[in-house]
Structures are given as structure tokens and as C-alpha cells.
């Protein structure tokens, strides 16, 4: 079945966008967490996407000048945003520094909301490709139905 790689590719896109959505949800949930296991405030996490290139492609293998597309996308790494924490003057806060400033996470709620919309759209696009592949597979299966 020529559609199985197609479904795997779309599934990789769905998985990547879902993981990205998980990270965004975690960032939003911890937007005000002044404590983390490593000490200091929570740090914003980001997903790094990488294309999974395929070594060979059946149709392209015997053709000069042809290249091969890959097997979808993967999350190569989850990295922390290196921007410094947000400082808020609040001497009464239990986690306030000696100078009275509290270090809040470097999470910008508006940025996260924009990222969330992008992740949602990306998920939908991959879902549409998945649906198209199943429609095509169904059309092919109908050929052998007596």
C-alpha cells in the first residue's frame, strides 16, 4: 500500500504539534512559578523541529537529479529559552531577592497564545493530509470490491 508511508508522515506531524502544544500548556501553567526543581523560577521550554530525511525513495532512486523527501518531522530537542527572568518588585514575596525583586518565569503569555494558534493550525493541516490519504486508500480499495 502506497499510503502507509503517507499516514506515518502525517502522524509524525500530528505528534510533533501535539508535543509543542503540551509544552505551550506547561509554559502557560507555570507562567508564575517562582520555584523549580533546579532552583530559581521556571524557564520557558521550546520544541526544536527537524525534518526526517529518507535515505532513498523508490521512484527517485533510479533517476539522476532526483532527490528524496523524508519520513516526516520529529522533535529533535526540547530546549529552554535563554532569555533572563522577568523581574517584579515585591519585597513581601517569600522568593524575593535581597534587593526586593522577584524573578518570574520568562514566559510571555501573548507569545504562548500565538504559538498555540500556530500549533493548532499545524495540527489541523496534518490531520487534513491524513484524511486525504485515507480517502485515496478507500478509493483504491473500492476497485477490488466485486
Amino acid at each position, binding site marked *: 500500500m*502506497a*499510503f502507509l*508511508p*503517507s499516514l506515518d*508522515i*502525517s502522524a*509524525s*506531524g500530528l505528534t*510533533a504539534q501535539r508535543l509543542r502544544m503540551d509544552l505551550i500548556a506547561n509554559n502557560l501553567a507555570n507562567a508564575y512559578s517562582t520555584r523549580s526543581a533546579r532552583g530559581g523560577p521556571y524557564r520557558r521550554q521550546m520544541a526544536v*523541529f*527537524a*525534518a526526517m530525511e529518507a535515505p532513498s*525513495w523508490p*521512484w*527517485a532512486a533510479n*533517476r539522476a*537529479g*532526483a*532527490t*528524496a*523527501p*523524508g*519520513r*516526516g*518531522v520529529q522533535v529533535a530537542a526540547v530546549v529552554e529559552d535563554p532569555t533572563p527572568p522577568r523581574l517584579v518588585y515585591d519585597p513581601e514575596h517569600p522568593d524575593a531577592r535581597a534587593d526586593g525583586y522577584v524573578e518570574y518565569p520568562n514566559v510571555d503569555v501573548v507569545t504562548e497564545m500565538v504559538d498555540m494558534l*500556530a500549533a493548532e*493550525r*499545524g495540527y489541523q*493541516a*496534518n490531520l*487534513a*493530509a*491524513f484524511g*486525504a*490519504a485515507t*480517502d*485515496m486508500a478507500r*478509493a*483504491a480499495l*473500492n*476497485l477490488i470490491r466485486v
Partner: protein
Amino acid sequence: MEGIGLLWGPTDRDLATALNAAALRQQVIAHNLANAETPHYRRFDVVYEEALSRQQQAAARQKVALRRTHPAHLARPTSQPVQPMVVRDNSSVMRNDQNNVDVDREMAALAKNTLYYQTLTRVVGARMLALRTAISEGRR
């Protein structure tokens, strides 16, 4: 396979290649959509219809060709069937991360390709029905 004539002839060979091209294009579009937000990713494309048309034009220019009573008639190519090819599209970068996937364009290509595939399967189905009718001596 070629000897059977009406069915499983050159037309069916071309239909099979076109179906394969559409299935391959589906994979390429899925891959482009999956990597719509991957930095530095460049989209892939499938070249098939253009190559097929070029081959048919070349066949039409040959001295020994099918006699065509109308210039719009397609010539039957005598050479090897055109195979779909996956090529990388390095054109127009409009984004900071060097990614050139346009989701709208890919979605349009996805819709077109699905319709194209379904049309092809209808044609193949009609040919199989004709064969079945012949086998059952017209009783169906």
C-alpha cells in the same frame, strides 16, 4: 501482459503510473505539511504531468507516429513510460527561518491530488467492469 490487448495494455500501464504518481505526491505533500514549521526545510515537489506532456510532444514530432486527424489528438508514445520524480523546490523564500512551505498552496495541492486520484480510480474501475462484462459474456 501487453499481449492481452484491450485491457492491461499501454493505457493501463499509464493509468498505473499516474496512480503511483498521485500516491507519491500525497506523501510529498504530507511531508511538506509536517515540516511547515521546521527551520531551513525546503519543500519537495513531484514532477510527472509536465514530463508526460513533454514526452508526448516529442513523440508527436517523430516521423513514424500515429496518424492523427486532429492536432489535439494525443500521440501514443513508443518510449518508456514517464516515471514521477521527486524534486526539491528551492524557490522563493519569504520567511526568516528559510522555510518555503506555503500551507495554503499545499492544502490546494492536497485537494487537487485527492480528486485526481479518485478520478483515476474511477477510470480503472470502469475498465475492470468492461473486462468483467466481457468475461461474463455480457450477462451482468
